[in-house]
């Protein structure tokens, strides 16, 4: 069955089991959406538990779904539930034994990425002044229409003055602008992760970075947001302990 738009309405209890043949279907729970694709079941939780949907389930592009019987799909449904549990474990954190170094960040090779972007755009950021005060002033003076140049200077600043706390502030501010102005999630996330990796001792900046990471991952419907949500909670507790 080809479909576009609402498949199940909020409050409805799905009575049939549908599997996606192609397309993208969006489920929303707890104000967070999850995009389902080929091979996923539509509203599986609510169908199995016979409970009402918290929100509409919507095909966000032309999609095809096929009705199946639970008996035939029994073992495939188990596999699907196991895959959800694997995601759960991948995004869970041992709160009692946490240290920041435990976080296995996705490859975030921002330096390589920026070099590629810059060579494509033939941007020339120039050299960062040797004097710290001048370098700070230069970075602060760069307008939003030269954001990638600013990113590049921030990167150089951190390399040149790794002990300077203002580097963490630059990373967070620039990440937010990159996300809002350029809508570049990759660079924004990379900059924020650089805060966690470079300044793990600056808890307040790390907290701000994790909260922003949480919201970016949530916006893109990526369950990884749970990792940063928990990390932010841990940092909050650590900050209270230090207060």
């Amino acid at each position, binding site marked *: 069955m080809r479909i576009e738009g609402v498949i199940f309405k909020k409050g409805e209890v799905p009575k049939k089991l549908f599997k996606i043949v192609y397309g993208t279907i969006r489920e929303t729970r707890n104000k967070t959406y999850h995009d389902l694709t080929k091979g996923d079941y539509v509203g599986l939780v609510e169908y199995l538990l016979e409970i009402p949907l918290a929100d509409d389930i919507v095909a966000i592009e032309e999609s095809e779904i096929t009705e199946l019987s639970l008996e035939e799909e*029994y073992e495939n449904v188990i596999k699907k539930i196991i895959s959800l549990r694997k995601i759960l474990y991948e995004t869970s954190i041992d709160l009692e034994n946490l240290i920041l170094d435990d976080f296995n960040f996705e490859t975030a090779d921002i330096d390589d990425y920026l070099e590629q972007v810059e060579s494509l755009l033939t941007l020339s950021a120039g050299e960062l002044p040797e004097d710290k005060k001048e370098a700070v002033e230069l970075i602060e003076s760069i307008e939003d229409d030269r954001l990638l140049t600013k990113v590049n200077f921030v990167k150089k600043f951190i390399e040149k003055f790794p002990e300077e706390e203002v580097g963490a502030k630059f990373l967070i501010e620039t990440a937010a602008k990159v996300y809002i102005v350029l809508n570049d999630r990759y660079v924004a996330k990379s900059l924020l992760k650089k805060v966690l990796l470079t300044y793990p001792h600056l808890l307040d900046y790390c907290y701000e970075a994790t909260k922003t990471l949480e919201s970016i991952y949530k916006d893109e419907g990526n369950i990884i947001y749970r990792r940063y949500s928990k990390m932010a909670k841990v940092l909050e507790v650590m900050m209270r302990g230090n207060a």
Partner: protein
Amino acid sequence: METLEFKDGEKIIKKDEIGKYIYIIKTGKIKVTIASYESILSEEGPDVFGLEALVGEPYTETCVALGDVKVIKCEKEEFVEIYERTEVGKEALKSFMRRTAKALGWI
């Protein structure tokens, strides 16, 4: 298929172990741990755990006896033949889904 007895605190299945058997609770209660989420299973239903064995995957939860417990241990073929298409099989899947959704904070 055989009935096994466990004492309080004894581990019946452990996360990441290769799943060979499916278990049906005959009497008593079981504590299930999935990441930081914990729930209690009992003979009402009856509750089943170890469904991962049906698809050759390692267990994704740890189950520990709460007090004296009796469970029926099934091999994959036995569960498929006797229980899978019955209410026990359906309830097992629902319970497996419910624990997962709760652990994920979806319900």
